[in-house]
């Protein structure tokens, strides 16, 4: 019997296909390609939006036209042709009034493939889910249970119609329409996403979850998520993302806004597994996302992300610590392999007194990928006694990948305490052999070492998603050792 070498493993892993790369044949309605004021109006009309919303979108569109795509990130790609994308695609036969039992059987089959059978989710996990396929929210489970507590969890398109006061008051307050190129684009064309409101003093009894999936070819997905946690409330929110394997790049430009009012706490977890492209770097999702949270007095926002997919990632979930004693946290695992590129990190803006932030970033690079951490810690003049702790660890697999760290620190207050630690390590042959000797095959050994490396972040995920994330890390790493 011949030896199973690391090279064999490498070949095997390279040939392993993206597990979620299936395409579901659902009848869908797709707009012609291109973007103009007419298209923006058409989207708004299609969604039966009020006039103020249409105007808000147009304002964003007009700003976007004037803007240029940013190129300061440490990523290289052919810029998408924004006129070659269709900005609206919806599975047909969607009727918001129907229950789970009426959902298109093909869609249900797709959820099964994704490993998220709604029935099961409903019964076992105690998780309320909103699923966004292409651009439209398909099913929101558990709505009734939540409503009893006064919690609103629904597609944002529905919220615009049914809770216009809330949406109008908060939409764009954390990420303004003109914040950046992609945020402006999203503001103009977003077609769905999730909306969540937790009333004063309510502790949301279950995890709220959104599942995003790009299905149609040649479409962009622009979700808009708005989470509002009223005073002294608590919510834990999770989003998961997948897309089918396609040769061309798909564009994903989402905006997430979180508002944590006095004493509120929001935990926002993401498991991002968009199609990363094939082993030659062909295809894959461009993931240009703006995520930001605002903390009022004594509030806390915690971002946890596991990023394994996308060809190019540009994403900096941030916290604006406006209120005194507010807390911001960012826990991240970013895995890149083959030709993937990730430029991700966070911004912690300390405005209030005694504000505190923690950044734990774990980057894992394999293949020919490039993985960058970019973070900003900013302490304003009035933020007395602000504290930040940052830790950026990189793990390299093989000799052809790169890990980069770009930490920016700006402090205008002499009482600030800022700590930054960084390490870079490599999976050693001796570690792998040690595991092998105990009967653990190389592939499993790498997974074990990577999980150990990522543990501090994995521990921050809700239990059931930590297991999923662990599996995902295993699938995503196609690296060799040595």
């Amino acid at each position, binding site marked *: *019997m*011949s030896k199973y070498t690391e090279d064999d493993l490498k070949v095997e892993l390279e040939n392993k296909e993206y597990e979620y790369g299936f395409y579901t044949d659902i009848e869908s309605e797709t707009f012609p390609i291109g973007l103009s004021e007419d298209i923006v109006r058409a989207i708004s009309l299609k969604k039966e939006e009020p006039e103020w919303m249409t105007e808000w979108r147009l304002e964003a569109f007009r700003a976007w036209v004037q803007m240029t795509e940013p190129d300061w990130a440490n990523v290289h790609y052919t810029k998408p042709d924004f006129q070659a994308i269709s900005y609206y695609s919806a599975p047909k036969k969607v009727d918001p009034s129907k229950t789970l039992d009426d959902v298109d059987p093909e869609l249900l089959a797709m959820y099964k493939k994704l490993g998220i059978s709604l029935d099961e989710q409903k019964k076992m996990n105690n998780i309320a889910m909103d699923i966004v396929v292409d651009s439209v929210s398909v099913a929101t489970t558990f709505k009734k249970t939540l409503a009893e507590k006064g919690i609103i969890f629904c597609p944002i398109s529905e919220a615009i119609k049914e809770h216009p006061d809330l949406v109008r008051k908060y939409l764009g307050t954390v990420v303004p329409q003109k914040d950046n190129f992609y945020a402006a684009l999203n503001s103009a064309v977003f077609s769905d996403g999730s909306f969540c409101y937790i009333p004063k003093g309510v502790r949301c009894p279950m995890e709220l979850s959104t599942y995003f999936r790009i299905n149609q070819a040649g479409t962009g997905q622009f979700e808009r998520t708005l989470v509002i946690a009223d005073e002294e409330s608590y919510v834990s929110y999770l989003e998961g993302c997948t897309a089918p394997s396609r040769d061309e790049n798909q564009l994903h430009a989402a905006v997430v806004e979180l508002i944590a009012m006095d004493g509120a706490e929001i935990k926002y977890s993401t498991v991002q597994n968009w199609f990363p492209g094939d082993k030659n770097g062909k295809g894959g999702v461009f993931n240009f996302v703006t995520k930001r949270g605002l903390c009022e007095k004594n509030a806390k926002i915690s971002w946890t992300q596991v990023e394994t997919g996308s060809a190019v990632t540009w994403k900096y979930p941030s916290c604006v610590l406006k209120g005194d004693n507010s807390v911001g946290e960012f826990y991240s695992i970013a895995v890149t392999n083959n030709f993937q590129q990730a430029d991700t990190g966070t911004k912690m803006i300390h405005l209030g007194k005694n504000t505190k932030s923690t950044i734990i970033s774990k980057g894992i690079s394999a293949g020919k990928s490039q993985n960058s951490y970019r973070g900003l810690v900013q302490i304003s003049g009035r933020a007395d006694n602000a504290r930040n702790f940052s830790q950026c660890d990189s793990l390299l697999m093989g000799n052809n990948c790169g890990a980069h760290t770009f930490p920016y620190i700006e402090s205008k207050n002499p009482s600030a305490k800022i700590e930054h630690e960084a390490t870079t390590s490599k999976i050693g042959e001796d570690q792998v052999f040690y595991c*092998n000797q*105990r*009967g653990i095959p190389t592939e*499993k050994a790498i997974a074990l*070492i990577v999980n150990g*490396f990522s543990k501090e972040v994995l521990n921050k995920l809700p239990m059931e998603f930590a297991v999923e994330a662990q599996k995902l890390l295993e699938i995503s790493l196609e690296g060799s050792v040595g």
Partner: protein
Amino acid sequence: MIWAGDIISKFPNFQISKFMLEVKNLHAKVEDKDILKGINLSVKAGEVHAIMGPNGSGKSTLSAVIAGNEHYEMTEGEIILDGEDISEMAPEERAHKGIFLSFQYPVEIPGVSVTNFMKTAINESRKAQGLEEMPANEMLKLIREKSELLEIDRKFLSRSLNEGFSGGEKKRNEIFQMAMLEPKLAILDETDSGLDIDALRIVANGVNKLKSENNAVIVITHYQRLLDYIVPDFVHVLYQGKIVKSGGKELAYELEEKGYDWIKSEN
């Protein structure tokens, strides 16, 4: 009808191997440097063999090659475990067949607890044998049993593997793993190095408790002192990649008395 007895009587040289491990004419090199130059070694179940020798004689290479470390290239010979040639097998397959190596320098794996590591190792072995994963309660029972046997504080088991362990803790952890995995053949590579006398006694006691009629131990050591605690049935002296002398436990004392120069001058 042919009877097994007939075959054996017709071919008097044919016999079912009574050895657990047979190393025949083993040659190995690392980066073009020949290290092992024809090692022969036979070990039966229930035996303890000691391999001694001066620094650079190839002791650690021998243990690494038996365990299947691909950093070393085996150029000639055979390694037979229970009648099966394992020299082409991956290290994890050898481990599944019952080979255990206690490392001279155990590596650190940050974030992976001793318990989690052992759980993974045991379940991978079971998987290779077509068995289900060990149920959690059974695993806990096994851990409790073995840690009590070796007098290991269970708090120790939730620490990251070898990270920040003292020399003694590392070696005790190796023996704990040996206890958990219950190997057929355990190779202890310089287990005594870096240990004070108390730690040495604890580790040796652990090995003695694990010894049985069904397993075998190869102790690799530079000094005789470990052999006061783990008493060998045979002692082999390795020098320049060959076993140049074999004998009973008294050979270790002779070596201690005369020093390795005695071997060097004879060869």
